[in-house]
């Protein structure tokens, strides 16, 4: 039973890896302009995350 489960996990990992590789290859093959659009979106996403994580939350001013 345990052995069967570990085989399934191995298979699953292999499938995930192959999907990831295919996705990366697809991104690599995109035209330069499309790649740059994705690159700018990734930078925006990183900026938003940095702001959310690093900036102190504003104190609420009670009226």
């Amino acid at each position, binding site marked *: 039973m345990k052995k069967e489960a570990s085989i399934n996990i191995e298979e699953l990992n292999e499938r995930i890896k192959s999907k990831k590789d295919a996705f*990366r290859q697809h*991104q*690599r093959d*995109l*035209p*330069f*302009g499309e*790649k*740059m659009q*994705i*690159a*700018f979106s*990734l*930078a925006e*996403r*990183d900026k938003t995350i940095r702001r959310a994580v690093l900036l102190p939350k504003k104190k609420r001013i009670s009226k």
Partner: protein
Amino acid sequence: MDNIEKTIAVINRMTDDGVIENYALGGATAVIFYTEPIATQDLDIFVHIRAGANPLMEFQPIFDYLKERGCEIKGEHIYIEGYPVQFLPTAKKLIAEAVDEANEFELSDKIIVRVMSPEYLVAIMLDTGRLKDYLRIGVFLQHDTVNLEELQRILNEHDLARKWQDNINKFQI
């Protein structure tokens, strides 16, 4: 024509008009050209300025030329056809050589773009030595885009071979 191609076309015209001597895409933009998209906020263009230009005002002719053509300057970027571009000098010998030896590619619409070669990019990233540079070197090596013999030649020539050996474990993913 895609916007990025319009941006490159403007930069090519700057070379034809003698505003810059030569250029090459470098930094993350060049990495993206060879591999998959990674986060970047601008296009890094390394330029040889015209010989005899005043070093304190070396980018002024570029800004003047582009402003005359309606490009807007915001902070360290100048927007060409909607793309934020950063012009960078080729102050170091390694970078100047990377611009001279850049690969030329044809985008659609017969636009030629000059991009630093993977080997020079890796050498420059090693020289710069930030964590993100090491991660990008890892990406390059993973994609098998680097000619290791050529890289070794560049590393030897620019006294970077030792630094490569000292950090090699950081590039292996």
